[in-house]
């Protein structure tokens, strides 16, 4: 069985600095994969490569077996890979609804995500849809960022540090919403600092260290100890 999204020996460079060394990661249709690791392990570089924000070789990223590496970010979205960027990166001069509508530009197929579907997932956004995006709380802004990425009706949703800076009850709400996304057979790849949230939400994890995959497997098959060792080294 071919994976929906697969990296084969993915290298990422920033000038002379190499951030990723031959990373192999695969995600099946409808699967949720978590990428964990310490700061500087290369998680965000991995997401940047998958979303087309940094350059990579064509054959190093495969979507349904066809090479998509090195495509521009706007082509990646149209292929069905949509990123919720770290730090949310909402458009500050746009309202909540305008932010969501921007996401619809990348839509090429219908997987059931529309303004109404996003508002059904996050009812609070409907109440605040005409407010400027920066006036929302951090958790609500994260909901806008997720909703905006969903508006592209992606096959693969990339979530970069979506719990960062949020209070635990808000994190629970955000991950509950991701559960709904998974029920629609969307593949989700999350990068997460919060180990507990990552293990709970994912079918499989990959632990990165210094730009390489140092551990992978199903959360239930891995001992907490092994994960901790992979995470912190030693």
């Amino acid at each position, binding site marked *: 069985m071919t994976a929906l999204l697969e990296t084969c020996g993915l290298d990422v460079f920033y000038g002379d600095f190499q951030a990723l060394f031959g990373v192999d990661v695969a995600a099946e249709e409808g699967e949720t994969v978590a990428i964990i690791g310490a700061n500087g392990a290369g998680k965000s570089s991995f997401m940047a490569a998958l979303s087309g924000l940094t350059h990579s070789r064509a054959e190093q990223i495969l979507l349904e077996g066809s090479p998509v590496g090195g495509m521009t970010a706007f082509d990646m979205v149209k292929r069905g890979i949509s990123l919720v960027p770290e730090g949310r990166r909402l458009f*500050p001069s746009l309202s909540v609804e305008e932010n969501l509508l921007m996401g619809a530009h990348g839509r090429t197929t219908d997987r059931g995500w529309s303004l109404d579907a996003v508002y059904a997932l996050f009812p609070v956004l409907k109440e605040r849809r005409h407010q400027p995006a920066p006036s929302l709380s951090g958790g609500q802004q994260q909901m806008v960022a997720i909703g905006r990425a969903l508006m592209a009706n992606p096959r693969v949703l990339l979530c970069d540090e979506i719990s960062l800076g949020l209070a635990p009850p808000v994190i629970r709400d955000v991950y509950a919403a991701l559960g709904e996304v998974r029920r629609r057979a969307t593949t989700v790849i999350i990068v997460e600092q919060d180990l507990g949230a990552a293990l709970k939400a994912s079918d499989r994890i990959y632990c990165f260290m210094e730009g390489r995959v140092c551990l992978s497997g199903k959360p239930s098959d891995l001992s907490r100890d092994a994960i901790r060792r992979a995470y912190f080294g030693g």
Partner: protein
Amino acid sequence: MSTLNTLIQGVLLGGLYALYAVGLALIFGVMRLVNLAHGDFIVLGAFVMLGLGMAIGVPAPVALVIALPFMFALGWGLQRLVLNRTLENDLLVPLLVTFGLSIIIQNGLLQIFSADSRRLTLGALETASYSFGGVSVGVVPLLTFVVAVAVVAGLSFLFYRTSLGRTLRATSDSLPVVELMGVDPRKVFATAMGISFLVITVSAFFMGVRANFDPSAGPSRLLYAFEAVVIGGLGSFWGTLAGGIILGIAQAVGGSISPAYQQLAGHLVFLAVILFRPRGLLPKAG
């Protein structure tokens, strides 16, 4: 009464400066590009309409209608083929390229049309005026002002009420994130430049019917446009209109003291705004 007259003439002149300025403000707002050839493209637009009049004998308003799609295509192509290649993290390259374009346009027009002063003609309308209460208002200056307000209102509608405007504002906010939305910024930039060239063409028409122009008239149009944008701030197109009006009033008041002070008064107001309100009257929020 003459004070009121001076003020009115200044406001109407400001309409023309606002027309010069909004196209410049649009491009700077969306792609942080200072188009140093902006004034020369205005003059080019006027020569296109003049040339249409000479070649096929159409009156100036018809030439304007013909020139609009041509100039849109010129702006679109200029952005796609030239300027998009200059927008790579370096502010100097687009400045140099548009400066070079400015020289090319001036010398190209000089070759084709010579250095003679030209005008677009509107017949009897040029000298028509309304008089009320001792104040006389020319029809053409009034029309210029009305069109300037309409252009500003139209651009505001486009920016705040349409899908294209949403994309333009989002692009202004953050270029990399717009790409993550599936938007090709090169197309957005080309469309923005095309719209700017529509405004350039309208302002070229009114420049041409209000005053003489020659191939070297571009840089001073750029200067007025630039001053109006800075005075108004980058918050909205209405601010740019206000900046144009303030510049127009300053020039009219200076000119009423002595013709030698007309330009100077405008520059002094511009400098005063830079000193005391460097972000302009209606700055961009945040």
